């Protein structure tokens, strides 16, 4: 029977039957996908840490074709692509998980130039001989809740120390529902409810989680991005590039408010509740026995900005000073270990924003931090 005869053997009834069956199977697959959370299982199929090395930081990028990286929202897939997911903790390893915003992630830096990468490269050992290995768990956008979400995942990897970089902007209550938080409503709601965070579990900004949105059709974009991330893994492996940094970064320009308000709050009006210290508290509790080092991260300081009423375009002096005081007081009250490095770096180190520093600054900060971690891990008598 030649091909034309085979083709002629079809009839419309058979074709319709096949199409109905195919449509039925597609519906069933969608129902299964929507009914069970298959993302963790799918994340296990990651090419990272198997075919290609894991990424040195979480996937993030707006220019995939040049950075071989892209922003995805599925935490399971993100974490599966990170080097930490592929590295069995060694007995002689002192594992440090570094949390924070884009400054920690290394917005203006190549993967080997970031603060955690440099702490790692410093090759420090604790007094008991364990090698200090730092992992970059920072992620762009300023939100402590986003950091808490990542910490909740990072705890799976048995860290020995959590280093958590924060700043006023990431502490600000209204900033808590960052995109990563928005797109992971289930995990965030669990944290809110279990850790009694002062956030609304039904916040309208959470991405909807209707049945339809959990189907393959509803999540097609997330699925496509998860697959694309696997392909970019090959380019990551072959080039070591995970970030395209434009040559000329322009400093952000903001109009300074005459009345010195910060997100609408005027001098003298700051309430403690506007600062998400409850999220820090939840993070410390979540870490359990693992020590947490809180660091008020370095900021760009321009003495002359706003006739000296501002530290920089983002922070009026009054609120930043008050934030530092309150953070200090709260830390003392709660027994947190706090390191205030707000003015540690010279203003020339900052390139495009209030917190993004250059490679040289990252190096100096890393050597300070590595030394500090070493000291922190030494028994009290040896410090």
């Amino acid at each position, binding site marked *: 029977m030649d091909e034309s005869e085979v083709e002629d053997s*079809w009839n419309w009834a058979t074709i319709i039957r096949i199409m109905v069956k195919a449509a039925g199977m597609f519906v069933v697959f969608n129902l299964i996908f929507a009914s069970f959370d298959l993302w963790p299982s799918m994340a296990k199929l990651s090419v990272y840490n198997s075919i290609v090395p894991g990424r040195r930081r979480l996937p993030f990028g707006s220019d995939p074709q040049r950075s071989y990286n892209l922003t995805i929202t599925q935490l399971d897939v993100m974490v599966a692509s990170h080097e930490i997911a592929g590295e069995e903790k060694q007995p002689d390893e002192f594992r440090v998980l570094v949390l924070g915003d884009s400054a920690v992630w290394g917005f203006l830096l190549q993967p080997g130039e970031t603060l955690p990468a440099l702490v790692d490269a410093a090759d420090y050992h604790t007094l008991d001989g364990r090698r200090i290995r730092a992992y970059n768990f920072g992620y762009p956008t300023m939100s402590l809740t986003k950091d808490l979400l990542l910490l909740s995942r990072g705890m799976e990897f048995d860290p020995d120390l959590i280093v958590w970089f924060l700043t006023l902007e990431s502490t600000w209550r209204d900033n808590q529902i960052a995109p990563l938080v928005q797109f992971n409503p289930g995990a965030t709601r669990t944290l809110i409810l279990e850790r009694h965070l002062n956030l609304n579990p039904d916040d309208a900004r959470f991405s909807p989680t209707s049945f339809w949105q959990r189907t393959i059709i509803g999540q097609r974009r997330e699925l496509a991005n998860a697959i*694309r991330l696997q392909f970019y893994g090959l380019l990551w492996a072959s080039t070591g590039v995970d970030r395209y940094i434009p040559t000329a970064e322009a400093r952000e320009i903001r109009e300074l408010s005459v009345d010195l308000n910060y997100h609408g709050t005027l001098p003298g009006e700051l309430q403690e509740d506007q600062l998400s210290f409850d999220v820090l508290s939840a993070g410390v509790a979540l870490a359990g026995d693992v020590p947490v080092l809180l660091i008020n991260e370095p900021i760009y300081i321009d003495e002359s900005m706003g006739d000296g009423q501002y530290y920089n375009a983002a922070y009026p002096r009054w609120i930043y000073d008050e934030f530092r005081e309150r953070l200090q007081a709260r830390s003392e009250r709660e027994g947190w270990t706090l390191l205030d490095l707000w003015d540690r770096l010279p203003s020339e180190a900052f390139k495009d924003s209030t917190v993004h520093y250059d490679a040289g600054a990252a190096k100096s900060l890393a050597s300070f931090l590595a030394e500090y971690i070493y000291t922190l891990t030494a028994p009290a008598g040896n410090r």
Partner: protein
Amino acid sequence: MTFAQIFVFTLLSLLVGRLSGTRIRSWILFVANLFAVFWLQPQTSLRHFDFWFPTATIALIVLTWFIVRERSPLASEDRISLAAIVFLILLISLTRLLPRPLIIPTYPPQGQRIVITLLVAAGITAAFASVRRERKWIFPGMIVFIVLLLVVLKSETLQIGLSSVLRRALGQSPELASKVDITWLGYSYIAFRLIHTLRISAMSKLPALTLRELLTFGLFYPALTAGPIDRVERFVKDLRQSQMLTPGRFMQGGRRIAIGMFKKFVLADSLAILALNEIKAAQVSSHAWLWLLLYAFALQIYLDFSGYTDLALGIGAWAGIDLPENFDRPYLQTDIGAFWNRWHKTLTHWFRFYVFNPLTRSLRSLRTELPVWTIILTGQLFTMVLIGMWHGIAWHFIIWGLWNGAGLFFHNRWVLFHQKYWPLSSTWRENPFLRAIGIFITFNYVALGWVWFAIPNVDAAFDVMRKLIGI
């Protein structure tokens, strides 16, 4: 073509294919093609040129038709076709009144400009129609015009120059002139279809065509963006006997559409992430990765292009037209000659028919007898360089053409050498191990040639070549 456009075209073909009656089907195809050429035209920064480019395409085909048609008064069908074209163009111009652009990406120009342009086009056509085929210069003249236009559209310098001139005329900034401004949808394919039509008409081999038939041939929506380059006499025969959509034809076309979608949108688009380009070539850390990127490019370009061909064939089959195959497992061929017989077949056949054969014939008939090898070398190199330049008039495409031309020439010499000194029995020729070696060598030779395709910067391409072969 976007996913949405493919979806609409498949539905349209399904509808056309299910209609009983060839005549009604061909009229619907005619109107659909006229809409499609406007709908598929990408946006350009030149004001209103996403309207003028498709209009010019239609005008060019109409003009060609007036040149090739038999001398006789206009038949009523052709008058209706002309009226339909004018009506449709004016209808699209009315989309200007809508709250947002429809069919074309931006608003069309004002109605009076369109009317004036149509009158000028009608005048030019009438002038040509009065001269027509009795004048010997008319066919080569029209072919030269089409080729010159193609040269302008393929040369970055000329594109920018033309863009600059047009920008000045339109009151737009000439400093912003860019080659992207001159994005004329499907012209490369339409030009070759029209040249073929003019050529066989000059040879009196063209069957009598209605305007509707020539327009449907030139603008057939499945093949508008990426071929294949059909022959008018074959296409029109199909159009006149177009098959109604039977279950068998539905499955045959559906399979091609599904395969095409999978090749293009799943495989090729994924491989595009990895495919070699200048930046990646400079960044990769090792020799092996560079080969991987090159293989990704080789597969991506094949799957992308052949995927589009599958789509065109499938959508065409549903509409009742069987377009010619364009690819036939090219990477599984044991020699480069066989590769070029199976890669973009309709283009290579066109060049063989209109360039290689006439050129080698004329070289053979020279008064001074040339050695055969020089004739073959000249023919292969010249043809392949022209194929390269069809993709773009740039050094990297020329070198790509030379690379492939040289490959074809050396293969030709190798075959002759074998036949003379070391003839292989058919058993040896079919030996799976030898075949595998042949496929490996052919694929890698072709893949190395793609370096010139992937990297426009000639120096960078040479560097990549050096890295790949380890020198």
